[in-house]
């Protein structure tokens, strides 16, 4: 798409594009190309020798039990975060939508966790669930539940899920509320006159009309849980105990930065890139649907 009336010139537009393109090439395309290139090589830890090994790194990664473990962790983690954050946000948005005047007040009171950095969110929840110091951590121990997220992998997973979902709740709430408020009141009134009870009205009218928003948010939440929660996991559990909270992104970091295994880390990066491309493609289809429905 382009405008009919335009300015002439060739050098000026290129000069205007230059900064953006320079940054894009140096810090996006070059590293991405390097990642693909390195994923096909094997290098010893000191960088003395490298050889071309084809797809061997990928084979190794995909058959590595610790990678499979990280992939499963990512699935559980992002599934739970998306489910929890979407479910709670939808419930609260439906409640807020009932009163017109209250809706904006509640929106103001609920949106600010969006501004809290993932790593800071981790620190807040850690202070609550620390087994000896935290209010809730001590409470759980007091009522007989042996709570220590530093020793129990499942508890560690629960804690990172709560912290991640807490942060994403606000975002989902804003979008659900906007979606609900765009549903024409006449449709709901018509259903009410026909005798449909509130629960039925929700499932047969509101939920289907909201489905483009829900689908869009689902993709955004999954992307968030996969890629933007590094800070939460790094600050709270460092992937532990015994790799119980190690997600795919965290494993790329551990293998590349700490273990200096560049071939494997690059192969993992390439797999993640394919995943992001898939998610982004789905997201764009979702946005198109949202515009056209």
């Amino acid at each position, binding site marked *: 798409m382009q405008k009919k009336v335009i300015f002439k010139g*060739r050098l000026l537009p290129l000069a205007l594009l230059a900064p953006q393109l320079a940054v894009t090439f140096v810090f996006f395309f070059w590293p991405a190309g390097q990642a693909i290139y390195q994923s096909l090589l094997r290098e010893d830890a000191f960088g003395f020798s490298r050889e071309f090994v084809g797809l061997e790194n990928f084979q190794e990664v995909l058959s590595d039990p610790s990678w499979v473990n990280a992939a499963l962790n990512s699935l559980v983690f992002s599934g739970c975060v998306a489910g929890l954050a979407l479910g709670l946000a939808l419930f609260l948005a439906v409640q807020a939508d009932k009163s017109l005047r209250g809706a904006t007040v509640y929106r103001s009171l609920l949106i600010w966790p*969006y*501004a809290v950095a993932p*790593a800071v969110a981790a620190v807040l929840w850690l*202070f609550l669930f620390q087994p000896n*110091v935290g209010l809730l951590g001590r409470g759980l121990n007091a009522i007989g539940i042996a709570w220590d997220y530093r020793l129990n992998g499942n508890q560690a997973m629960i804690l990172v899920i709560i912290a991640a979902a807490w942060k994403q709740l606000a975002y989902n709430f804003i979008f659900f509320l906007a979606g609900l408020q765009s549903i024409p009141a006449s449709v709901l009134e018509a259903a009410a006159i026909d005798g449909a009870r509130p629960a039925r009205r929700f499932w047969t009218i509101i939920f289907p009309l909201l489905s483009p928003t829900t689908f869009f948010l689902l993709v955004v939440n999954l992307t968030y849980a996969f890629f933007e929660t590094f800070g939460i996991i*790094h600050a709270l559990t460092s992937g532990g105990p015994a790799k119980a909270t190690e997600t795919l992104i965290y494993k790329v970091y551990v293998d590349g930065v700490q273990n200096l295994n560049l071939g494997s880390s690059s192969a993992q990066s390439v797999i993640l890139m394919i995943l*992001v491309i898939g998610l982004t493609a789905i997201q764009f289809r979702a946005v198109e649907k949202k515009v056209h429905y």
Partner: protein
Amino acid sequence: MSSTTLPATARVPAVRDDALLRATRRRLLISRIIAHGALILGVLIVAFPIWMTLVGSTHDAATIGRGDVPLLPGLHATENYATAWNEGGGRTRTTPASIMLWNSLLMAVLIAVGKIAISILSAYAVVFFSFPGRMAAFWAIFITLMLPVEVRIIPTFQVIVDLNLGNTWAGLVIPLIASATATLLFRQFFLTIPDEFVEAAKIDGAGPLRFLKDVVLPLSLTNIAALFVILFIYGWNQYLWPLLIINDRSMETIVVGLSKMIGSGDSQNEWNTIMATAVLALLPPVLVVALMQRWFVRGLTETEK
């Protein structure tokens, strides 16, 4: 149509009508009460971790270390915040919060301003000019949506090392300022500027740069404000990239510095000063969202289109 012309079946006896109305009103009232109850509970749950952090930042280390965190604020706020501000929080006394806050502010503002500036320029070039390679340039920018920093960490880090930009502001900020979303947003907005404006500018003899400065930029101010709020938060909350690039303590940002104070979550830590640092770390972005809420919601919903 007057009421007398209504067919007899449409008329309901007045008494039943009243009862029905009252029942409906009562149902509505109950549903409202449930709604408000659920929302207040939701707000309290969302706010609880922040409240406990505020409380934790006002007690002395011994009270918290014993595991006796009260539910109400204590009397040690001033000294805790002073320690965090001047010496740094936690047992290890890393970097003073005053320095880390300044670093975070600088990083956030540089990222937000940088992203907005290069995005406006490139969107302007793509929309208002026709030149060979226009679509190629647009797609090159667009594709970066699919390469978040997390998936290309190690090779990007190597580029920084090769360019000798480790531990510098340039190395911290420049890789983060390319943004497909901001460029798409401005492109979308520029396309809505009427052609007549460009024609009028041309007739008046204004060149493309003059048109950008005197027409396009003033028209874009609301978009810029909305985007700035979102990007400021994005910049302030950066974690993985500063963690890799910065190992000079005087350049530490507060989000990374805070998580370093935690260590492995030991009980015997100075939780009071850590919590004071946490409050300082979350206050600026939360204030930006609270004070600029209108721009924030607008920026959020528009960048996702």
